[in-house]
Structure formats: C-alpha cells, structure tokens
C-alpha cells in the first residue's frame, strides 16, 4: 500500500471528498496537492468527474451512484502517485501600473502608508509562485505577497474587471485573464493574452510555475498589446536558480 500523502480526508456532502495536505500554504505542501491531483485525473476512478487542487487541499467530486467516500479512499490508498517530472518555469509578465490600467494603485498605496512607486517596487521585487488556477478560468492564484502589501479585499466588488488586470488581496496576487466580476485591488494591466479559448491547457503557465511582474510604460504597453493582438507576442522566461 502506497504511503498516504495527505493528513486528513473528509466528505463534503455525498458527492465530494476533500483531502488536506497541510495547515499552511507552502510550496512543498502545494506540490503534493498537485501530484495527487494529477494522479487522480490520470486514474479516471469510477464515478469521479472533477478534481480541484487548491493551496493545501484537493477536492474530488464524484457521482454518489458510482462511488462513495470510503470506496474512494480505499482506491486512493492504492493509487500510485508518480514523482513530479516537470521542472517549474518562471514567466515575466509586463505590467503597466497605475492610471486607468490600475485604478486602485493610489488608494491601496495610501491605505498601506506607502507611495505608489513603493507598491510597484515591492510587487515587482521577486517572482510569485502560482499555487493553483481558480476563481475564474485560468486565473493564477499567486503568493505570497510581502507583509507590507497585504490588505483586505475591496468592500464592494466590481461587476466587471477588465481582462489582463493585475490585482492583489490579502497575501495573494494574480491576474484576471478574462473580463469577470472581481473584488481584488487593481494595480495595473498586462498587455499579454492569458487565456486561449478552447486550447487545452488554455494558459501558457501552470500551477507550480512562477510569474515575475515587470513595470512597463504606456508606449511599451501599446507595442506589446499590438503584438499580442496579432499573435506575435513572445513571452519572456527567466531561469530560476535553485532556491
């Protein structure tokens, strides 16, 4: 029997099971979440129709006619969980900060008792790990922000956040790939297209990869947006040294 990689398992109703891998969202715990998620998806267990990896937990959704939590746990206990083969990548994401592209930059800077430039330099200081994709299609949930940037989410969410908006809330940061409602603070906007409809996977990044935000000016934004529009944008990558 394979060694159990999760700390705890609990049924979430009669059609879902939650596995918990740790108390805190650290990269090692999150790596385990994605390893088990990949194995469960590949195994096509009876009745299982959905697998949702998050920071520290994995949700497995199934048809209660075809399985139940005990049966599923027993199958999971025997499931081979291959070691991760893929080396994580780090993508540079150009961002036009402030102004119309980032309407919350000045208010959030004021609330944090920082200048807008200080917020930008803190936000671009180092790459952020993508812990999972969620909230909306292709949305990279990244972390963790330096403590100086941590703030509560907006009290009233926007009904439409423009696609490409770079945002933060709490200890998390990320990018809205599509125009959707949203409650995070908008710092800026990337000219790159993040979500390719109908492609699988629809994003060039995956969980465990990193995004490194880089400030650009309005002219650079316009040039990159034009290249993104014609499909000739090149996504810059940097090699990550060993941690």
């Amino acid at each position, binding site marked *: 029997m394979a060694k159990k990689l999760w700390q705890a398992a609990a049924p979430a109703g009669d*059609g879902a099971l939650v596995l918990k891998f740790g108390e805190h969202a650290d990269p090692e715990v999150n790596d385990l979440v994605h390893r088990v998620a990949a194995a469960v998806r590949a195994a096509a267990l009876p009745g299982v129709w959905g697998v949702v990896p*998050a920071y520290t937990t994995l949700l497995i959704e199934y048809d209660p006619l075809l399985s139940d939590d005990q049966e599923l746990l027993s199958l999971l206990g025997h499931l081979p969980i291959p070691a991760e083969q893929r080396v994580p990548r780090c993508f540079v994401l150009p961002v036009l900060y402030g102004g119309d592209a980032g309407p919350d930059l000045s208010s959030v800077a004021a609330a944090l008792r920082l200048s807008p430039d200080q917020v930008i330099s803190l936000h671009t200081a180092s790459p952020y790990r993508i812990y999972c994709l969620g909230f909306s*299609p292709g949305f990279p949930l990244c972390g963790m922000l330096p403590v100086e940037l941590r703030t509560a989410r907006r009290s009233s969410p926007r009904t439409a956040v423009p696609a490409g908006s770079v945002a933060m809330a709490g200890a998390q940061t990320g990018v809205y790939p599509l125009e959707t409602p949203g409650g995070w603070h908008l710092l800026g906007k990337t000219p790159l297209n993040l979500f390719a409809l109908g492609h699988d996977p629809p994003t060039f990044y995956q969980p465990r990869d990193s995004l490194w935000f880089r400030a650009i000016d309005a002219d650079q934004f316009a040039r990159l947006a034009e290249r993104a529009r014609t499909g000739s944008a090149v996504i810059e990558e940097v090699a990550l040294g060993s941690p």
Partner: protein
Amino acid sequence: MARLKVLHPGLQTSVQDAGRLGHEHLGITVGGHLDDYAAAWANRLLDNPPGSAVLEITLLGPELQALDGGWLALAGADLRALIGDRPWPPGSSRNLRAGEQVRFAGVKRGARAYLALSGGIQVAEVFGSRSTDLSAKFGGFKGRCLEAGDVLTYPGLPAHPRLAPVETCLWRETVRILPGVHLDRFPATAWERLLGTDFQVSQHSDRVGIRLEGTPLTDKGLTADTISEALAIGSIEAAPSGELLILLKSRGSIGGYPTVAHVIRADWPVLAQLKPGDTVRFQAVSRQQARAAWQEQQNRLKLTPRELPAAGGAPGHGSPPRRIAVTAPVGGVLHLTAPSAAGQRVQVGHLVALLEVSQQFYDLESPVAGTVVVTYFGEGTSVETGTVLMEVETDAP
C-alpha cells in the same frame, strides 16, 4: 436543420448542457443546466441523446417563433407556457408548425424551465461542453444569454407526443443536508439554528449561488481569513457578515468561506427551482438516506414516458413515422450486430444487439420493422437497466 427564432429573450434564457466536466483544475467552472433532473426529462421526451443542449429559462420566459416545423419538449418549472393561445403544461412534447409561437405568461411553480429541441441545440463545443458560461462569456450561443433576433438551429428529428409519467419540477421548501466540512469552526449551536430557522431566498441569488436571508447562525461574524480552497457544489457557506450562500454549479472553483453544511446530490434540482422570496428550511439526513434519495431519483428518470394520441388528430393520411427505442432490459455489456448500424433496414424480431450478463448472452430484437436511426453506444460498453441503446424509425404507413 430546423430553426427557432427569439422574438423576446425573457429574463435570462441560455443554452446549457450537462456542464464543463474535467476542467475545474484550469479554473473553468462546471456550469450547465442547474436542474439536471428537469433537463434530462426534456431530452428524454424527444429521445434526444442524454446531455443534449437545451434552453434554460429563468422565471420570465422568452417569446419564440418556429421558422420551421419541429418537435419541442418542456420540463421543470411551470412558467405558464402557451403555444399561440393553447396552454402547454411542462413535462410534455409538442410539434410546432412553422410560424407558431411559444411564450410564457408567468411563474406558477418553480424557477427554471427547460426547453429541449429535437436532436439538441446546435452550437459549438467549448472545453467539451455546449453550456454558456455567463460570467466568463464563452460557450453556448455566443457566450451570452439569448437576445431578440437570435436564431437557434436544431436537427429537427421526428418525435412523438409524450407526457412524463412523473412530476418534472422538484420544487419544495425543504432541502436535505449533511454536516459541512468546516462545521467545527462554527459555535456548537450553529447546526441547531440552521435546522430550526426558516430562511428566505434573497433577490441577489443567481446561477453562482442562492443567498439566504434569516437569523445568522452566529451572534458575531466568523473570521474568513482562512486559505482559499475548492468548495463542493451544494456547500452552504457563511460570509463574515453571517449571511449564508448555497453554491450552485456556476460557482468559482476556488474561493469561499467556512462551510456549515452540504445539500445532498439529489436536492440540487430543488435548489435550481427556488426563486427569490421562497421560504427554505433544512432537514438533516444520514449518508444512507442521501444515497437512497439519489438512487431513487436516477431510477425515476428511467421510467417510460406516456405516449399520447397525436394532438388534434393526424393531419391528412395516417400517422407520421415513429421512433421506437430499444432499451436494455438488464444491465450488461453491449455487443452489436450488423443490423445495428444507423441506416440499416430491420424487420420485427431481427437481432440488433446482444447483452452479456454473467457470461450469458441476452438477445435484443427489433420490436418493429423500419430503419435504425441511431445507436448510442459502441461495442463493449457497459450499460445499465433501462438505458436506451438505439432507436428504430418505423416505416411510414
């Protein structure tokens, strides 16, 4: 192809199928028809392949006009549908003549009606589904709700007048629940309060979730600064304000607040039929009861629809060709024979398939003389009792 034109779109009318399964790890929501029971009945009444795209009609229905003749079926909420001036009760199929109009006069019972078009609505699949993702604006018909002037196309296959043998709208005030994954984060009194309170469905409910108004479960708000995780569909979560939200199939895949309870699988269709202002109360059940309820609901979907005499008498000479389903009398492994291919002529008693059950072979014969129009499953598929395997169109008299 037959066409159906939208004269007036109604409140929120969208193309939906069973939803985008297997893409949640990419952040793509499941969505699809919120009431899978009613949608399944709408498709069954027309012998549409299971999971065909249908229209989900919310509260105030659309006005539609048949540009060509074609069969439609209605199930779920009673929104007082009319064909011309004739009432059209949910749970039945009708053959529209070119030019005829369907409209909905108001809400009588439930919240969402499902309109199936024979052969299924033809729109492109996006991430394996024809559903409209209204939040991300893709899939379905141009990624949005229907608007006046839109024209839907569907194969317009022959069908016949039928009536569902059971109620297709599962609206009721009582929703059955199991304890939530985060129940231990709530005060000990929260579960009792949840079961003892009559809640009201808020106006701010949508396909993402049902907001409830009523006494909060806790006297002070719960802290929400826990790490985001994926919450199961049907989870009842408590916002920091104490407000409760029941997550439906269009929920974001990750996010959320502490979960006090989960609505059982069999009652997802009940959630879909709740409308703003409705009263909701919760009833605790055991895992065994939850499973039995789901099993019973799935069995009910296998009941045979009642055949009705052709409405208003058959026009002209004789009745139109009819499609007869060949169903599996027992569960087993399907083995096809040469006459099972679409387009093959069969006589009464022709062997069209074999079912392998415990190493025994059970003969399936064609009940009528006619032409095989569709075979739903491939060689070697495991099928359950009552599954429609193929359909044979009888020769026109």
